[in-house]
């Protein structure tokens, strides 16, 4: 069965303290891996899509990377406004563009 596991479940960082979030997956024939940011009580906001191992994408303080088994979301010098839950989702090679989501990493950046 396809699985997506995110770690850690929660992460507290001091402002400026860089770190990485992990998303490991067991989907065969991955079509795409997606990162979303979700603020409390709101819908997920799209961040990145990665399609092949070795691919990297950046946006402000965030950089996403992909290997054959996992993806990392690197956060460089985070600010309090980066506090949110970060969701990872994978798109298997079947279905009408269905996505399988992890349970997310809740990031708190302390000023």
């Amino acid at each position, binding site marked *: 069965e396809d699985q*997506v596991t995110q770690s850690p479940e929660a992460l507290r960082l001091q402002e400026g303290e860089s770190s990485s979030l992990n998303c490991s997956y067991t989907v065969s024939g991955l*079509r*795409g891996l*997606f990162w*979303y940011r979700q603020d409390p*009580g*709101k*819908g*997920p*906001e*799209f961040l990145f*899509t990665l*399609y092949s191992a070795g691919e990297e994408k950046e946006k402000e303080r965030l950089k996403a990377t992909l290997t054959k088994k996992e993806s990392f979301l690197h956060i460089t010098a985070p600010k309090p406004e980066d506090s949110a839950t970060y*969701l990872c*989702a994978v*798109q298997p090679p079947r279905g*009408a*563009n*269905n*996505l*399988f*989501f*992890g*349970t*997310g990493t809740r990031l708190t950046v302390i000023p």
Partner: protein
Amino acid sequence: SQTIHQWPATLVQPVGSPLSLECTVEGTSNPNLYWYRQAAGRGLQLLFYSVGIGQISSEVPQNLSASRPQDRQFILSSKKLLLSDSGFYLCAWLSWGEGETQYFGPGTRLLVL
């Protein structure tokens, strides 16, 4: 630009009552549309998706149903709510722009008492 709306934002309903949640999309035609549920401590669970008017696919057998009466309208319904139907319901549409990306609406918080 495309915009997705969900209504209502919050809903408190008694067990056994009916449910109707609405999702509408603006700025695109014939989008793929999705209903997800997000329960506390769990990942988003796909409930239904639709590739066109009147076309509904169910992913999980449950107390809910979906309909797509118009091109850009997607409705989630129930005849009798259960306590376990409580959660955060999210509608999404698929963009075929740079790859296949789902964009989410603001969500509806449902509490069944």
